[in-house]
């Protein structure tokens, strides 16, 4: 017999573990989608592709916003603000330069 109280106490870490598994699941699926989509990218566009994926992975900005903007100690928030600045630079320069390069590809 399993004591229901003990089972309930054991539950929270279990939940956490389950959640991590679903994260791994998402990671594996996203990698396969990425491989499928990127394989079809025009070979002409590898340079803009790299700056575009760079801007996209700067979605790390959402993590930095939390670290910089929440009620945390000052040093933590400074670290967060620097990270936020770095991600934001990638977003701005990444999208702008991708568009600038793509504009140059003309058929005739």
């Amino acid at each position, binding site marked *: 017999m399993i004591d229901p109280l003990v089972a309930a106490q054991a539950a929270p870490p279990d939940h956490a573990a389950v959640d991590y598994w679903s994260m791994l699941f*998402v*990671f594996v699926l*996203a*990698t396969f*989608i*990425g*491989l499928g989509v*990127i394989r079809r*990218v*025009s*070979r*002409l*566009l*590898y*340079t*803009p*592709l*790299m*700056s*575009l*994926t*760079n*801007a*996209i*992975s*700067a*979605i*790390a900005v*959402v*993590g*930095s916003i*939390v*670290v*910089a*903007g929440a*009620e*945390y100690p000052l*040093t933590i928030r400074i*670290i*967060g*603000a620097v*990270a*936020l*600045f*770095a*991600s*934001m*630079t990638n*977003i*701005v*320069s*990444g*999208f702008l*330069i991708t568009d600038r*390069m*793509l504009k*140059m*590809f*003309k*058929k005739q």
Partner: protein
Amino acid sequence: MTHAVAQLAAIVATALFIFALYWMNDPKTARRGVVAGVAAMLIAVLATWIQPEIVHHGWVVLAIIAGFVVGVPLSRVPLTAVPQRTALSHAFGGLAAGLVGTAEYFLGLSHDPAQLTAFRMSAIVAEVILGFLTFTGSLMAAGKLQEVRWIPQRPVTYPGQNVVNIGVLATAAALGVLVVVHPTAAWSGQAFYAIVGLAVLFGVLLIIPIGGADMPTVISILNSYAGLSAVAMGFVLDNKLLVTAGALDGSSGLILSIIMCRAMNRSFTNVLFGAFGTVQQTTAVGEQKAWKQETIEGAAQLLEQARLVVVIPGYGMAVAQAQHKVRELYDQLTKRGVTVKFAIHPVAGRMPGHMNVLLAEADIPYTALVEMDEINSDMPQCDVALVIGANDVVNPAARYVKDSPIYGMPIIDADKARTVLAIKRSKKPGFAGIDNELYVQDNTWMLFGDAKAVIGDLVKQFGSGGLH
């Protein structure tokens, strides 16, 4: 409520990111991809910002403004500088991941040690190691590409280099395991700093033995690392959008690395630990044949009488900034009924797709840019192959000289053209330090000089009307 908004926003943003990459499959739809990417980013940022735990809005605004102040000028660099800008943005991506990982660890340590579970700690350690090694590695790569004075351009090697490099990484990983097992011990904080320090050091050591011709592969690998560090950050912050976007970036870097490695007939480990270009200085093969030099007038005549001209650009064209003069030559030749195509080797230049972007900048239609695999079947019908600042990618030695460092590398078959015209800055051998027998072939004629000046002279020949 705000939680549901955030989840919904993440799903929409994920879909938009996938579409953004999907639209890159054709230059016609590619700009739509940028719009989708920007929209996804805005949605994700706003959905995070409205969360109740964000209270210091001033900090967020300030950092965002600073990002614009630096980001806008970085997007206006000349296209020859795009490889170093890309490397720099990998560095920023790595830095952000490394910093957030560090913040999360010390936050957990001082506020809520129970949060530092083995899984979360593993993710934090992975994030910090990947993030900081990408940071310094990419900074070094950017420095080499920018030709910063105190960073050696040529690969630097020393005995035991690989042992030192792997030792540094292994020590960081071992300390990582210790911190994962004992996240809150008295020494854990110091161990964590040591991990950061070792990752920073490893990034530098990793790039020291890398030379210019390896840059397309190395930038792709760093691209992959930057993506993976974002994935690790997603694990730490329990954020599926981050995991997805990071995985897309990581797989893109992976595919590009594989394509670059194949185009050089080398493996990942060989690129990272092989120190290309310093290993063999092959002794001159057999008897030395002499160059045959051609005059500008003669070259112009050859070009004008051709039906099909294939231009093979290399890094030398980028260095000389010759792409606009190449465009003028293209105009002059097409006006005279000559078909002009551009043969693009996957590793020509300093990053994937570098040549395409430079030629597109000069308004050369992308329909004239042909990949190596496609152009090679046309080469026997080609009247003139015009080699501009390319060397190893047209070296026939890659086909049969077994001890050559480029042996097995697929090349553009310039030697099969009826006539080869090669523009070369100096009589020195190429990056790999090996002779190029293409230049001494019976049907090859050399034009020595700066690519921009030589092509400018050719254009003048056509312009002056001296040829009819």
